[in-house]
């Protein structure tokens, strides 16, 4: 199985549809920063796993995560977003696997990538994690990572995630069972408290029974049946309940009779008070009647004065016209011997006398009108005063009436209480009833005590049954606590055992890997003085993985960054080469040669060549063009499959693209021999 090509569009650094071909033998991808080398590796990882493992789920910046940057962000339509990987399958057919933002499609079964082994829970993730050697993973294994984190990385890289899950599951079980145990312990305490209460009640009942057992219960029972009005066959406990109720009623009756007695003493003054109130009421009534009469008289006088005034006002209007005529006549004066108004023959003396007579008449009428107006105002004032007096007396009468009624109601209520209590509203009658009721209370109390003593035997039996049931509940809860305790113990043990088994598996894997790691270390020669590397695992609670070169020398503090990277590459290559389940022999290295000198770059090329000699397809991205030339020269081989050199570039505005694809053909054979 070989990776044939990747087709992508609007993915990571690529905007336009792009095809990246791969040689069956090797492919060297070169280009500057941002030209799409890493995006090509991302595409392969994404098409296999639909995620980019070098960004963790916790990689969030400004609320954004890698998922927001998978697809080209500047306005590409969803229909144009895809990544497709094409594989040459072992059966000679071609398989395609396509991922879009919405879907994943494959023309072949993904089991073509791996042997179907049940122990690998996410084979494509493991495949991708181990075939893709990227700067991030090299750094993690370059010994720059703390020992514990390095162990964790390796642990997961070799596919022990199932054991990790089981251990997590067991630890969760421990916590869940602990919580359940706490709940049950609480229930246990409550149930034990209930048992203790029942035992205490039994003890009390026994004491009561012991005190009253010898008394004559039968006679008392007979008497109480009569008192409570029950039938003779009423059970003892039912009778006791009825007696309790009757006793309570009789006690209430005593209280009510006491209160009635007190109210009766107080009511002796009520009759005198009522008489006074009635006298006052009647007096006010007389005043009110007089006031009403006076008000009516004043009203008549006011109406009469009003009418007289109105008649005078009508007359006055008529005299007003006459006064105007006189004024005009006076102003015009006599016209010869004729009146200026009617033209009749009249002398000057007569005319003047006539005018004076009219003036006198007008003056007299005006005076009368003034007097009548004043009289009407006086009558109105008198009426208002009488009306106010009447209203005030009406209010006072209403109050007097109300006071009388209130007192009468209180007296009626007292009478009513007396009737309810079946007594006359007299001190002697109430006193007699009180004596009788108190006697009944005493008899009932005594009878009830005897009954309780007798019914205590029944109660003891009932309580014993309750205790048995409560005890059974306690035992049930105890059993549950025991089983939970056992389960918790087993869950803890399972968590520890799982951890131990997984550590042993890691240990076994490291032991198996050790010779290969040593060989790769020798081949890559990170350091002239050290040709051996050993792994070292320690820790009980937490595990640590470290490397040793020479005698106990830690490369982390001895090697340069380039040398540490070489060691990291050796480890990752060892893991890549040790996957018997994998059926896709494609190694992808994303810019692995950084901080590595020419001498060690040559060693790296030789190692890749050796891996290629094993039939692996090698894909390597490098930034340096000369390094790409070196790799192309060193990896070319006709018999091991053709090679390609793909040059990529970044085009401003449209992103990454393939600039050129060059086939790397075979070299001449048998050169020396032919010589």
């Amino acid at each position, binding site marked *: 199985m070989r990776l044939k090509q990747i087709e992508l569009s609007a993915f990571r650094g690529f905007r336009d549809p792009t095809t990246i071909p791969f040689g069956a033998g090797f492919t060297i991808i070169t280009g500057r920063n941002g030209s799409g080398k890493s995006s090509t590796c991302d595409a392969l990882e994404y098409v296999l796993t639909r995620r980019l493992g070098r960004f963790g789920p916790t990689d969030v910046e400004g609320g954004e995560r890698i998922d927001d940057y998978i697809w080209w962000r500047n306005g590409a339509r969803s229909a144009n977003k895809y990544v497709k990987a094409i594989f040459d399958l072992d059966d000679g057919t071609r398989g395609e696997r396509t991922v879009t933002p919405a879907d994943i499609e494959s023309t072949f079964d993904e089991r073509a990538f791996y042997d179907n082994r049940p122990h690998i829970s996410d084979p494509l993730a493991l495949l991708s994690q181990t075939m893709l050697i990227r700067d991030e993973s090299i750094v993690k294994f370059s010994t720059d990572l703390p020992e514990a984190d390095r162990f964790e990385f390796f642990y997961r890289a070799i596919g022990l995630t199932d054991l990790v899950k089981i251990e997590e599951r067991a630890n969760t079980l421990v916590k869940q069972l602990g919580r359940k145990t706490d709940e049950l312990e609480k229930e246990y305490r409550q149930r034990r408290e209930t048992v203790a209460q029942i035992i205490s009640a039994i003890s009390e009942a026994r004491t009561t029974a012991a005190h009253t057992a010898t008394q004559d219960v039968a006679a008392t029972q007979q008497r109480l049946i009569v008192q409570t009005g029950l039938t003779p066959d009423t059970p003892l406990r039912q009778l006791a309940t009825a007696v309790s109720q009757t006793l309570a009623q009789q006690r209430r009756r005593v209280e009510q009779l006491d209160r009635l007695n007190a109210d009766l003493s107080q009511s002796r003054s009520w009759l005198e008070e009522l008489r006074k109130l009635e006298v006052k009421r009647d007096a006010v009534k007389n005043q009110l009647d007089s006031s009403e009469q006076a008000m009516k008289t004043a009203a008549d006088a006011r109406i009469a004065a009003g009418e007289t005034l109105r008649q005078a006002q009508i007359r006055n209007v008529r005299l007003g016209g006459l006064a105007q005529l006189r004024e005009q006549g006076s102003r015009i004066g006599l016209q010869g011997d004729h009146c200026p108004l009617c033209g009749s023959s009249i002398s000057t003396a007569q005319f003047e006398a006539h005018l004076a007579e009219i003036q006198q008449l007008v003056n007299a009428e005006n005076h009368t009108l003034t007097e009548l107006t004043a009289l009407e105002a006086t009558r109105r004032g008198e009426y208002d005063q009488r009306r106010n007096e009447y209203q005030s007396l009406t209010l006072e009468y209403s109050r007097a009436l109300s006071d009388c009624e209130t007192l009468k109601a209180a007296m009626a209520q007292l009478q009513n209480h007396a009737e309810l209590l079946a007594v006359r509203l007299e001190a002697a009658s109430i006193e007699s009833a009180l004596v009788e009721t108190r006697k009944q209370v005493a008899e009932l109390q005594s009878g009830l005590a005897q009954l309780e003593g007798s019914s205590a035997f029944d109660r003891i039996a009932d309580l014993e049954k309750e205790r048995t049931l409560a005890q059974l509940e306690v035992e049930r809860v105890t059993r549950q606590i025991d089983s939970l305790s056992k389960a918790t113990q087993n869950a803890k043990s399972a968590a520890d055992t799982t951890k131990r088994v997984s550590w042993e598996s890691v240990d076994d894997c490291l032991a198996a890997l050790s010779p290969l790691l040593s060989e790769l270390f020798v081949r890559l020669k990170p350091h002239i003085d050290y040709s051996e590397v050993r792994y070292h695992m320690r820790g009980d609670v937490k595990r640590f993985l470290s490397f040793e070169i020479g005698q106990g020398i830690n490369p982390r503090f001895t090697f340069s960054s380039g040398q540490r990277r070489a060691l990291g590459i050796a480890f990752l290559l060892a893991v890549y080469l040790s996957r018997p389940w994998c059926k896709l022999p494609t190694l992808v290295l994303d810019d692995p040669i950084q901080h590595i000198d020419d001498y060690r770059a040559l060693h790296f090329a030789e190692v890749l*060549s*050796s891996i290629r000699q094993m039939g692996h397809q090698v894909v390597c991205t490098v930034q340096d063009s000369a390094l790409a030339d070196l790799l192309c020269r060193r990896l070319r081989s006709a018999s091991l499959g053709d090679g390609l050199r793909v040059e990529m570039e970044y085009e401003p505005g449209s992103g990454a693209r393939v600039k050129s694809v060059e086939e790397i053909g075979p070299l001449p054979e048998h*050169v020396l021999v032919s010589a």
Partner: protein
Amino acid sequence: MLEKNRYVVSSRGEDMLQFEDETLLGFVCDLSLQVLLQSWSRRQDEFLRSNARILDNSALKAWNLYSVFLSSDVPDEAARKSLVAIEEDFRASRKIVLAGLQTATEVTRALYPFIPIQNIATLESSDSLRQLRNRLSALPSAAIDALLNERGGNQESILKRFQEAHEIKAN
């Protein structure tokens, strides 16, 4: 070793072999340490001179020319430094210079740049679940099934099954 890995190998005198495959070519000398230190440059030059025409005609392949100098003599510190210096001299060919080679394994290690990876390992974790099941055999089998959860199910159902496996029945 080289022939086993599909190289064409032929002799060039008593202490020298030449080898070639479709990618690279070169020669191997087996010398005493003293001779190696004295003659490595001359021997390389002689090889280049005698193959000058061929290498000119196959210039691309000539980039993959290896001069391999091996010795069974154990070097002292000074000699070791000299050997490193020879290896780091990239003039004309890539040099592989190793001394103190006593065993076939050491020779194989010297030839690592020309041969496939030798110590292929197998990382097998397939037995870990079986091992775990065996180790947990003291637990009730239903509890182990719940824990391994091979049937699938959420944590609540696992808890329920695990608990049921430990339930103590009343008499």
